[in-house]
């Protein structure tokens, strides 16, 4: 006997299995990042100055430490990638596999671009002698953006699989493949939303 509702929705719940699964997973992710954001609030409330002393130098505001234009640019990249992944799913819904490939490819490229920009940002910090151990502002900055970066990497791996070898399923089970892209899209949106909270919290406030 096969497992039911992998491709079609269960009539009384109205969803297929993976969609329940991904929403539950995202709920758990909210708690993970929620824990870290709570830690940020906890540390900041207890700090005499924020960002404060970092590597022997006093910083009054967070944009003295971090590069806001680059952060904004990266925000734009991620938002764009959220649009393209929706388009890739919509293309499948309209039976246009070629368009799907193009939009999913764009999504992956956006993800990679985000990571490259992030790498330049990290490098700039390191070359100025600013490391996680130099103060709680940097510690939480590197931890939160690092963990978010890992989520981006995970998303890129999954999306690349669906762009490349995984896309064979389109020929055998198009409905299930479309579902997979929808689920991957939900995850990718979540990664995007985390950044949308993370960017103002760390860069601007």
């Amino acid at each position, binding site marked *: *006997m*096969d*497992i*039911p*509702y*992998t*491709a*079609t929705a*269960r*009539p*009384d*719940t109205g*969803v*297929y*299995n*993976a969609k*329940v*699964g991904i929403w*539950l*997973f995202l*709920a*758990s*992710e909210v*708690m*993970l*990042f*929620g*824990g*870290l954001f*709570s*830690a940020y609030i*906890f*540390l900041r409330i*207890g*700090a005499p100055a924020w960002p*404060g*002393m970092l590597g022997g130098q006093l910083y009054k505001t967070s944009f003295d430490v971090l590069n806001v234009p680059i952060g904004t640019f990266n925000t734009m990249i991620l938002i764009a990638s959220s649009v393209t992944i929706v388009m890739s799913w919509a293309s499948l819904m309209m039976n246009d596999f070629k368009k799907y490939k193009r939009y999913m490819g764009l999504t992956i490229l956006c993800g990679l671009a985000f990571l490259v920009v992030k790498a330049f940002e990290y490098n700039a910090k390191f070359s100025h002698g600013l*490391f*996680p*151990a*130099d*103060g*709680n502002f940097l*510690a*939480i900055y*590197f*931890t939160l953006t690092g*963990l978010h970066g890992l989520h981006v990497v995970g998303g890129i791996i999954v999306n690349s699989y669906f762009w490349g070898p995984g896309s064979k399923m389109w020929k055998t089970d198009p409905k299930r493949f479309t579902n997979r892209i929808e689920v991957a899209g939900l995850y990718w949106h979540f990664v995007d939303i985390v950044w949308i909270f993370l960017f103002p919290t760390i860069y601007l406030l």
Partner: protein
Amino acid sequence: MAKNAHNKDLQVTHPETSHAHGEHHPELGFWRKYVFSTDHKVIGLQYGFTALFFLLFGFTLVMIMRWQLAYPGEALPLIGWLFSEESMPGGVMLPEFYNQLGAMHGTIMVFLGVVPLAVGAFGNYVIPLQIGAPDMAFPKLNMASYWAYFLGGVVMLGSFFVPAGAAKAGWTSYPPLANIETMGQTMWLLGMVFLITSSLLGAINFLTTIIQLRAEGLTFMRFPFFVWAQLITSFLLLLAFPPLEAAAILQLMDRLAGTSFFLPSGLVVSGQAMDITGGGSPLLWQHLFWFLAHPEVYVLILPAMGIVAEIIANNTRKPLWGYKAMVYSVIFLGFMSFIVWAHHMFITGMGTAISAFFQITTMIISIPSVIILSALFLSLWGGSIRFTTPMLFALGFLPMFGIGGLTGLPLGLAPTDIHLHDTYYVIGHFHYVVAPGTILALFAGIYYWYPKITGRSMNDLLGKIHFWGTIICMNFIFMPMFIQGLAGVSRRLYDGGQLYQFAQPVLKWNEVMSIAAWIMGLVQIVFIVNLFMSIRKGKKVTENPWEATTLEWSATSSPPLAHGNFQSIPRVYRGPYEYSVPGNSRDFAPQNEPEEKVPVA
């Protein structure tokens, strides 16, 4: 009624049955069938045996500790030579080694023993059968969940062999102590990351399976209580574990990248100012840790309550008293368990206003627990009780959990907690909940579902010896802890409190407790023999030996080890506990049996 008609359509056009899937043929090779299996029953058994091994291992650790507590400074006889010179020179335990054993006993029992057995093993094996599903919703994730747990266990065990040994900062890993710990603590954190991943995958799988794969006609209010208990448990695992993962990441950063998340400014260790930027807070760890660890208490107890409910209904031959009240209570309990965590932190100086809030929520959460326990007690009233081995364990659970729960109330109130905090009273309290409570219930579950797994029942006489030996010894181990704790003996002393004047009158109990622990160790041999011997030698039984009503008993015994548990897709017509219904020909009505056509006069 309209809904039922709708469900009938669903049966006819069952969406997946027409698919030709070649990948799940039963002729899998040995590795795919028994090792890297995706079948929920194999995974359930893998979880079960691994968890039982860890329970025994964790218990062995504490049996060694109890020698040191009963006879401090004396060489450990018989097996003392097994240990290295850094842990037990000449068989005499060093304080550092005692701390390793203590920290790892707690960690192993909670995260590698009880939770994997209660959720991983029973949940995996029983839930799909009880809801009439062919397997879990995500079989591959299920396998990944087991192997993540296995790796976590390997890392935890491996930590005993790194330089300076395993983690020594207690199972709670409070900083700053945990931050300045040796390498074992890093291993502990990595192991926890594996275990958290495992329970995350498991929780997603259980929830999706219960919501999506239940049989037609199995509405939520027709769930056996065990399914409800596992459903709420999975929500707790899903939402409470990630903050601990966050905390573990922060502590790893502190230890490996030199940050100061949990280290305050001006920290002095062994007379030396630490070279850190500071500005962190040890309280932050405690908040994140207990945000997990309080719901974790309910992760430990809810599956046990579920098992006990099944067995009590079956062996009293009557419906559970107050099924609906129990269901609403368990939902409320799950919700409340997220807002009681700081009652573990009354004496940390977090402030009286916060203490007041958390002691109120703590008193509130005791209400649903009491409702569930009372309902189980009242279910016995007027039943024709069959004193089978599983029933004995289930009956033992009720008063033992009652003692554990009631002794928790003084800990939930700040004024009394100040005296009792960090004493043996606390150890006695939570062991009554988890050991004579949960572990008795887990044994009950093993005896109860064993015939379903093997097609044979376990030996009754050996089972009864196991029960009486275990419950008597457990009370001799844990009851004196209340006496010692009320006298003020602190919980983490490696000599059991020899150096304290006030502890002298109650120290004599240490020997009693230790001897009871060792006898209990011997009694478990009876269980181990019974468990393995009955696989081949046990009495052969039918597929429904207990004459139970829930769906798992309509599947063949020892169901085939491939997806698919039932001959045909089951359909559910009635509630879970229709025992002794007046006018019926038998005293039980299985859930998948249509209404008897005889009109009730």
